[in-house]
């Protein structure tokens, strides 16, 4: 771990910087007695030195490490014999992996071809040089920062203000990460999707009725047969999410009503956490439950009444997904119902309405926008849910309206396309990114609308 050692060294340098800065400031005013002449407390001069010592060096190190492997790989590859280099991108990638694995010692060197072995040695040599250069550069940057600040320290230097400005900038940087993540998602998914749409046209993808990505491996079928029609996936997703919402909305809403309006405090305090357990269970557990308990149960029940139920039926996945979403809806609806002012209820009671009439005709109507927002959020979650459908829904893209048959969903296809072999220029893997883009856009729209509705509703009663 040379990088870890470098970090430790840098940290030590920063501590040294703190001490140097602090001592320098004290020394300038003649020790602790002259502290009044300093603009800031001595510790701030120390912090300023330490920050200037560590931050630029850290930045250099981060950028260097991010680019190091890519640059070294391309350097090594450019030195390979032409016969080895002239392959397509996929094989070149494999070769790079081989070289790296030899360097890391993951595969025995004896098993490799001589050219690859030479390349691996070259790689190791370059890596050694790079590590050495990095260590030198980082420590030099640290020392330079230290020396520069030390030379600038004088009693009038506004050290506290500088330190605080740096901290504030760091805080701003951290909050910008959220924006960068969104940008990263959009750019990476969009870029790969555009590559996909070079091979398969957009309307073929969005309107095509046939989905069979496997056949694309055959040379005569790439991007030609319309095998990337995603409509069956969209329909499957809609069906499973629809079943989930049919379970979750009534159960979640009625439990919220009961807990908020009828239940006494003791009942509420003991039952609400139990319902919230459902929200804390990992989705892979739901998937296991759906695939190995609910699925077979539905099939046996179907056999008893003479119905043919597929073992990976949309019904099983949808039911279990509905269970997963119950606490989501019930807690949101609970918030919305308790936010309705008591005066509205009192008014309804005064007119002679019963409790249920009040709830149905006054409370629910007042809370409706908020509840709709919550349901929209729940739908977005159902669409994006992955593990339950990966484990309990089918793989084959069927166009069917029968919930007892197996259907597949967008998320299932993303997972199946991207686990296993990875060939990054085939439409098969790129299709996953196109599906991801659709998923991202749809859920984004749902979320934006839902959050707006919920916020507006909250403001109304605040």
């Amino acid at each position: 771990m040379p990088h870890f050692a470098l970090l430790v060294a840098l940290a030590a340098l920063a501590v040294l910087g703190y001490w140097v800065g602090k001592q320098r400031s004290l020394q300038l005013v003649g020790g602790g007695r002259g502290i009044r002449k300093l603009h800031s407390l001595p510790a701030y001069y120390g912090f300023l030195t330490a920050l200037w010592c560590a931050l630029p060096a850290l930045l250099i190190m981060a950028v260097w490490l991010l680019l190091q492997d890519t640059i070294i790989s391309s350097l090594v590859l450019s030195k390979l014999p032409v016969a080895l280099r002239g392959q397509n991108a996929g094989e070149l990638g494999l070769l790079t992996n081989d070289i790296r694995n030899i360097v890391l010692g993951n595969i025995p060197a004896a098993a490799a071809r001589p050219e690859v072995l030479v390349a691996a040695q070259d790689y190791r040599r370059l890596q050694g040089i790079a590590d050495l250069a990095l260590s030198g550069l980082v420590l030099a940057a640290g020392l330079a920062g230290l020396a520069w600040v030390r030379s600038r320290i004088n009693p009038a230097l506004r050290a506290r203000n500088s330190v605080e400005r740096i901290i504030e900038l760091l805080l701003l940087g951290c909050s910008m990460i959220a924006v960068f993540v969104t940008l990263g998602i959009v750019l990476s998914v969009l870029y790969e999707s555009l590559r996909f749409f070079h091979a398969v046209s957009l309307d073929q993808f969005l309107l095509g009725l046939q989905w069979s990505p496997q056949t694309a491996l055959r040379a005569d079928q790439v991007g030609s047969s319309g095998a990337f029609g995603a409509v069956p996936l969209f329909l499957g997703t809609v069906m499973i999410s629809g079943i989930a919402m049919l379970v979750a909305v009534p159960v979640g809403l009625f439990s919220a009503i009961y807990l908020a309006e009828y239940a006494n405090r003791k009942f509420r305090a003991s039952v609400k956490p139990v319902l919230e357990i459902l929200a804390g269970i990992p989705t892979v557990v739901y998937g296991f439950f759906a695939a190995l308990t609910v699925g077979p149960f539905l099939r046996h029940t179907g056999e008893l009444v003479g119905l043919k139920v597929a073992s990976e039926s949309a019904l099983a996945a949808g039911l279990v997904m509905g269970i997963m979403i119950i606490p989501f809806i019930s807690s949101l609806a609970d918030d919305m119902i308790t936010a309705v002012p008591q005066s509205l209820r009192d008014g309804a009671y005064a007119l002679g309405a019963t409790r249920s009439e009040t709830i149905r005709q006054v409370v629910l109507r007042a809370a409706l926008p908020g509840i709709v927002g919550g349901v929209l959020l729940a739908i977005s979650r159902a669409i994006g849910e992955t593990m339950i459908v990966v484990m309990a829904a089918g793989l084959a893209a069927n166009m069917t309206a029968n919930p007892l048959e197996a259907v597949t969903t967008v998320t299932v296809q993303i997972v199946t396309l991207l686990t296993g072999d990875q060939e990054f220029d085939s439409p098969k893997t790129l299709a996953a990114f196109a599906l991801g883009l659709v998923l991202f856009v749809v859920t984004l729209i749902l979320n934006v609308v839902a959050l707006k509705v919920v916020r507006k509703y909250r403001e109304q009663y605040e």
Partner: protein
Amino acid sequence: MNRSIAETRARVERSLKRRRWAERRFQAYGLGAVLLGVGFVAIMFSSLISQGWSAFRQAYVTLEVFYDPEIIDPDGTRKPEDLAIADYAALIRNSLKAKFPGVEGRAATKQLAGLVSGSAAQELQRRVVATPSLIGQKQTLVVLTSDTVDQLLKGRIDRTLEEENRTISDQQIRWADQWVRDGQLSLRFNQRFFTNGDSREPEQAGVWGAIVGSIYTLGVTLLLSFPIGIAAAIYLEEFARRNRWTDLIEVNINNLAAVPSIVFGLLGLAMFLNFFGMPRSAPLVGGLVLTLLTLPTIIIASRAALKAVPPSIREAALGMGASRIQTVMHHVLPMAMPGMLTGTIIGMARALGETAPLLMIGMVAFIVDVPKGLTDPATVLPVQVFLWAGSPERAFLERTSAAILVLLAFLVLMNATAVVLRNRFERRW
């Protein structure tokens, strides 16, 4: 229009019965929905526990093994490399044949050897290499049986089925029953489940590799998301002026919290693996992806914690001449810290259960070794559950449930910590 009071009254009274009935029905729907939810929890937990409990015990058989010098070291060299490659499975076979005499022929011997796990031979090898003086002696050993014997002993194999429909033959059942009668076969605490990595053989598979992988991955996540999340929350809550930029950041964070987790996996695959060339299946990359995933949760919780600190604290500090940074660092942050920690733990609990994005970055590979570093190939607990759930062997079913129980135990622990933290340090103003 001018109905008399009596008429109205009669109408209302006639409708009362229906309205009261509707009231009762409505309330019953509510109660039913609540009970349905609670019932789901009960069904899930009881099915998980009843399926998974047995995996914590495993069938072991006591064998009398003769360390035959003819098999281990026919040349008598006692060289460690010769000892390491000897045919230890033959020792097991001989021991079994001594117990059940009259077994002849390849098929029958193979059936007999199938009663004992492949790990038994490895165990013998380990012992002999460690103490070569064992050669030529007899020893009574407790070794793992194969998963089929284990399942038979736990009553999970239906003896009434036709032989072809079972994974264990009639003859093997007779042998196993003989062992039981002789007191050689018994269920013991399944220590390997907690100390081994994954394996293709159910009886040797354990969760330790996945637990270590989860610890590494969550370690990276915690180290990155806690400071970054808190810093972002402080900026947005305490420093940011309200303008278009901060609005954009806010909307972004709220939306990111609701983006499907698998999209983060796509981001990790395209950016960290393909663009930056980071290693596949590594806890480092998994941790990075989970950091992006949990950041919004932590930021939102931390902002709520900062909001809960009353403005009078800030005003007092500012009034005493503290700068804004000093106000935050010395007064607001310490008071908001319990709330922030609670939010972080809940975010970590969510990250621990997250599976889908890790499938995208290759943490779904079959890995036997326990990872030793952040860049070693690794898997995590929920992915281990996913892998085992897809295995056809009956014995993996109980192991999947048991792994889920382990996962849930960790989650309960984390959430309980969060609750305790909240109850202990939460201040009401």
